[in-house]
């Protein structure tokens, strides 16, 4: 196939050369190289377009016939032409209802009136990658294998990204200081089960899937896809920003970024951009790109020079996307896009550099299906964020970005997704368009405290916004819904949904400290607290530990490398004991308020082939509580409860019953309590297909002769 393509290319190139070197008259050639630059490119484009057009026209009758035959089958049973799913991550039902009542969401109100509004049951746990995996597969977590952002490696108790695994190529050819890879790097998706768009594709129905979480690495199907949440940055992390500062003494970042201290000499700074590890070298080292900054104190601007590429940036202005190129050697280029923000020019220089996003025009890793789809979008609409979690909440949490800049960044990212959605809607008049928006999640995480005057985080001095920020967010999303409605095809189904809701995060619970204080977790001799990732935990006498945003694991013999609790009766007894002690756990520092409602035993939640990878318990925190920052990162100390004083003040990693999502649809549905696992079977039925038996959800449609209803009427 590729030989054929090569031959066709050679044929076209030969034709071009014949034209220029044999047929062109001297007069034409007298146009000269200057005009030649323009006319040659232009001619090439016209020539290609012409060839494509001719091919297109000649093959059109055949394709039309084929399409008609296929489409007769494909859309024969279809109830609609187009299904548009707008995923507004974390949109909270109580706030939606409040703003609906106040008349601030006219488009959603119209949707509710014409069709449906309901709470959407989320997954256990109520975490985005888990919920969106259930959305796409129509299955509960034990069938798709995603239980959190992180999973634990039972061999070393360290966290691993739950959604994807990226490994270096296995075979190399040593050449001097280099090792030349002889195979591709391994990129393995950890999410199991099959997304509904793959089933639709097999039946000939086209889908465009934009930024839906846990779609990295992209899988093949009939349609187009841009990976979303969990797609890495160029460093392979989930987003690492860089903070450049000349105020070295005060610089401190706990998570999410790195600090590069600077020295200013004669208003000039010489530093570097920290890139990924150079895996071409036998002795791997960080790739660095020289960065020179010249300060103009009077005009409050900086001249930024990245390996000869220059631009001027004003203080307190977020740059556009800047393209940068790392050269690991052997002529290979690794490209990224990033944004700069100078928060202070003088007396100290402070600059934020966003995580290095994979350049969608020349992606270093596959971030779309087909591979050229990201190239197409970037060329048509401009560079766009490719990092899964694009809104840099860590930078705001650490005080590196101010609130206004964060909001601008989040809405800029939102605009990119919005443009992609509208382009996809225009192109996919028949089929599914699904697009995920992060802005609702990120802004609520970072500004939810403004809705709660007693929130501990409001005691900090960095609070400049108000409850209006959240209100505006909801109103902006309503405007988006209005625009989407205007662009819908005839006979369409529009779904506006969120994967979970949102609640205040006032107090953190350090489960590992609780385990320690109650004798379930031991520290090494002489230690009274442990560093990150259980550094000083004595596993040989530890029975249970907490990891991630809601997981508790039993240190089980034969499963964990240093497990001490025997499977079977001993484990069951320990789980019963822990469930009794932790369900209803009270916070003595907050008038004995209940911090944990319930521990969800993995044996109680819907089963599936990947149950063994599920934490032994998923913690159902009460409203106002969440796992503490220290506990997430495996720190152990004597403090169980603590105030959350970070800007990250709203959350949803709590008892799933407390954080349902929202569901709006322009069609009526057959139940008052839809679940996120019902969306996939609904999509399939809308296009006249029967959902596969492994899907846990059922169609929400009120259709006559629904195959779903007949077969699954007793399921709920």
């Amino acid at each position, binding site marked *: 196939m590729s030989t054929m393509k090569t031959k066709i290319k050679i044929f076209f190139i030969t034709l071009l050369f014949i034209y*220029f*070197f044999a047929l*062109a008259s*001297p007069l034409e*050639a*007298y*146009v*000269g*190289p*200057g*005009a*030649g*630059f*323009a*006319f*040659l*490119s*232009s001619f090439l*484009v*016209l020539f*290609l*377009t012409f060839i*494509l*057009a001719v091919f*297109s026209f000649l093959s*059109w009758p055949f*394709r*039309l016939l084929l*399409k008609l035959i296929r489409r007769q089958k494909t859309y024969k049973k279809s109830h609609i032409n187009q299904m548009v799913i707008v995923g507004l991550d974390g949109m909270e039902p109580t706030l939606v209802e409040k703003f609906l009542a106040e008349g601030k969401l006219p488009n959603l109100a119209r949707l509710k009136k014409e069709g449906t509004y309901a709470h959407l049951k989320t997954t256990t746990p109520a975490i985005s990658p888990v919920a969106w995996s259930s959305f796409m597969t129509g299955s509960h977590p034990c069938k798709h294998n995603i239980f959190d952002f992180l999973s634990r490696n039972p061999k070393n108790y360290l966290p691993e990204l739950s959604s994807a695994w990226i490994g270096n190529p296995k075979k190399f050819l040593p050449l001097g200081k280099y090792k030349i890879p002889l195979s591709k790097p391994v990129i393995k998706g950890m999410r199991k089960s099959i997304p509904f768009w793959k089933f639709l594709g097999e039946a000939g129905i086209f889908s465009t899937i934009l930024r839906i979480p846990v779609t990295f690495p992209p899988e093949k199907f009939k349609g*187009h896809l841009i990976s979303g949440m969990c797609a890495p940055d160029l460093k392979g992390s989930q987003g690492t920003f860089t903070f450049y500062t000349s105020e070295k003494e005060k610089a401190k970042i706990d998570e999410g970024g790195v600090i590069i201290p600077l020295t200013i000499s004669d208003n000039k700074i010489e530093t570097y951009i920290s890139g990924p590890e150079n895996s071409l070298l036998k002795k791997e080292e960080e790739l660095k790109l020289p960065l020179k900054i010249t300060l103009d104190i009077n005009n409050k601007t900086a001249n930024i020079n990245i390996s*000869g*590429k220059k631009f001027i940036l004003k203080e307190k202005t977020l740059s556009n996307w800047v393209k940068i190129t790392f050269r690991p050697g052997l002529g290979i280029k690794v490209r990224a896009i990033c944004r700069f923000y100078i928060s202070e020019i003088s007396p100290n220089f402070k600059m934020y550099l966003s995580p290095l996003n994979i350049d969608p025009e020349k992606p270093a890793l596959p971030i779309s299906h*087909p591979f*050229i*789809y990201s*190239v*197409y979008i*970037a*060329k*048509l609409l401009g560079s766009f964020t490719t990092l899964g979690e694009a809104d840099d909440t860590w930078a705001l949490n650490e005080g590196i970005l101010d609130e206004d800049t964060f909001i601008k960044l989040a809405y800029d990212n939102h605009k990119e997704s919005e443009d992609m959605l509208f382009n996809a809607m225009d*192109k996919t*008049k028949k089929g599914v368009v699904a697009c995920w928006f992060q802005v609702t999640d990120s802004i609520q995480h970072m500004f939810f405290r403004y809705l709660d005057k007693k929130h501990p985080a409001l005691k900090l001095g960095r609070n400049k916004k108000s409850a209006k920020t959240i209100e505006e967010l909801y109103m902006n999303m309503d405007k988006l819904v209005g625009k989407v409605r205007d662009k819908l095809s005839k006979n369409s189904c529009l779904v506006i949904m969120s994967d979970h809701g949102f609640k205040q995060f006032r107090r953190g619970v350090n489960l590992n400290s609780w385990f320690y204080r109650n004798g379930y977790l031991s520290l090494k001799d002489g230690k009274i607290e442990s560093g990150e990732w259980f550094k000083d935990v004595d596993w040989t006498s530890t029975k249970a530990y907490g990891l991630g945003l809601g997981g508790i694991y039993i240190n089980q013999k034969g499963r964990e490398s240093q497990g001490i609790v025997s499977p079977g009766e001993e484990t069951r007894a320990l789980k019963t004991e822990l469930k009794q002690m932790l369900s209803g756990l009270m916070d003595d520092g907050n008038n004995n308020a209940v911090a944990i409602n319930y521990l969800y035993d993995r044996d109680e939640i819907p089963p599936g082939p990947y149950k063994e990878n599920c934490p032994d318990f998923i913690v159902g925190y009460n409203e106002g509580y969440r796992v503490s920052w220290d506990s997430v990162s495996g720190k152990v100390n004597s403090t169980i409860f603590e105030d959350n004083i970070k800007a990250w003040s709203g959350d949803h990693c709590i008892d799933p019953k407390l954080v349902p999502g929202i569901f709006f649809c322009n069609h009526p549905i057959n139940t008052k309590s839809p679940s996120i696992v019902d969306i996939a079977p609904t999509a399939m039925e809308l296009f006249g297909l029967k959902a596969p038996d492994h899907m846990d959800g059922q169609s929400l449609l009120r259709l006559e002769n629904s195959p779903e209803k007949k077969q699954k009427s007793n399921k709920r």
Partner: protein
Amino acid sequence: MWTFNSIINKIFDILFLPFQSMNPWIGMIFISLLTGLLMLLVFRYTSNQEGIKRTKNRIKAHLLEMRLFSDNMRISLKAQGNILLANIKYISHSAKPLLFMIIPLILVLIQVNFWFGYSSLKPGEPVVLKVKLENDYNPLEVDLNIAPSSGILIETLPLRIEEENEINWRISPLKKGVYNLEIYIDGQKVSKQVSVAQTSLSKISPKKLKGSFLDGLFFPLEAPIKKSSPIKSIEISYPDKSLPLFGINFHWLIAFFGLSIILGFAFKGVFGVEI
């Protein structure tokens, strides 16, 4: 004009000096590279680089669109329309740099033409020397003769053609060199350069004119004939030259056009120019 031409001639003499005894393709590659680079710089500083980049991206996007949505006639047709529109915009972006480039390019092309367009004469190879007179003079009546030259044999008596208002001789070079033929007419002397089998790359002046501004521009190698002279022009019919490669003879213009574009494109990344 002659002062200006002398400077330009000198520059090109210096530029081609190292290449005179080499294969002419090397000189051609050199001048094409130089022109390509010069044009790149002009293009960079006179064009709307951002606009060009945006437009090119749109064209590429719509080309990809045709591939991504090859099953969809509506999208394919729309993409083709968009490509045509973007192409017009792209060409319009190139108009301004084109204006800036056209004058230096004409000067370069004129010079390159006299270095690569004609072969010098070979000893023993006869050629016609044409002297064209002003309309006021009759070729049958004027007193005109050529002074003997050590390297050039005047083979025939002057052939006076009244209808053409010109006088022709057949001359034959005797040995290699650059000679100045001295033509005497009504007591005035006019000289004409003759090149005989010089190096593989040498400049050839086929015609000398009395000269308007445009004549001076297009035939810059020799000083113009004085206005008072009865002679309008002196021309030697040098044979055309071509550049052989793999058995194919390329016209210098095609070689120059192709090479300068290819080399210009090759170096656009180095200079960060969006074409």
